[in-house]
């Protein structure tokens, strides 16, 4: 894994850039025109920062200027008591929602004994390339 100094958005951005450029060259691409990423709403990633760093690292590569699209995935918890899966409510318009106060209790029975079953993922969904 390549390490660049800085906050953890930078580490994650570098992983994205390595994977995208690796895939693009494996596909024989002339250019990468867009990259679609998925960040779960409970991942502790600031999407503005990550876009900025990915774009910076793309400079001078065949992905320079590629559009960076970011999709969310709602947080979900599974209840250890009743087994129900419920969505964790986070306000997507709240700029601080990536770290502010989601409620992890089970929406079905109210139990606090749940575990996060979705929402912490970080994925590269797809890339668009020209050949």
């Amino acid at each position, binding site marked *: 894994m390549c390490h660049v100094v800085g*906050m*953890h958005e930078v*580490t994650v951005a570098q992983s994205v850039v390595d994977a995208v450029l690796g895939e693009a060259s494996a596909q024989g691409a002339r250019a990468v025109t867009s990259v679609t*990423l998925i960040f779960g709403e409970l991942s*502790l990633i600031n999407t503005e920062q990550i876009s900025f760093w990915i774009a910076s690292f793309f400079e001078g590569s065949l992905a320079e200027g590629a559009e960076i699209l970011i999709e969310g995935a709602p947080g979900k918890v599974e209840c250890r008591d009743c087994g129900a899966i419920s969505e964790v409510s986070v306000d997507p318009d709240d700029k601080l929602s990536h770290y502010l*106060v989601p409620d*992890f209790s089970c929406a079905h029975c109210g139990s606090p004994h749940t575990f996060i079953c979705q929402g912490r993922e*970080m*994925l590269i969904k*797809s890339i668009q390339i020209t050949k």
Partner: protein
Amino acid sequence: MHKVSDVKMGQDILRINRRIASENRELFDRHGITVFNVMGAIGSGKTCLIEHAIEMLKGEYRIACIAGDVVASYDSERMARHGVPVIPVSTGKECHLDAHFVEHALEDVDLASFDVLFIENVGNLICPADFDLGEHAKVVVVSVSEGDDIVLKHPVIFKTADLTVVNKVDIAPYVGASAEKMHKDAVSCGSSSVILTSCRKGEGLASWVSFLRSVIKGT
């Protein structure tokens, strides 16, 4: 016109970290080593709690530590004074340890020479939460001087913690914080277990060690 095509990747960005973390965990299991990932803000008392743990457990178990910090020498000297091997990992400007740092830290040690490993994980409540190191239990240390709303500001790390330690409870009245509120908030975030401690006064340290023992016996 160049041909445009969409390439589906579906690739986990943290897959390399996940893979290395599970390799670390297999390595620890093979050598019968129980590993604690101790996280928490700068000044929350992580090093002090580890020092107490070493003192209370070193008669029963062979202990080693990884001191991960932006400059690791200060904390590693403190831990080494208790007569245990310490591997300093200076992260420079990196705000967290990842599985890769831990993998390299283990290269120069004899894994047959210890039973319990404490990993002190730099110092903040955000970045370490996203990175598995291969540990058996995650501990989050939070001090009352961080303000008693700190737990609700960082719910994910408390949700994923096997133990939350609310530390420095003796100074709560002087900093206007309620340790009981922090305890309640950690429970409501879903932290598996919560204890209150004061390293200075010795309060709660028996609960700290009893948690550690229960994890060691369970692995």
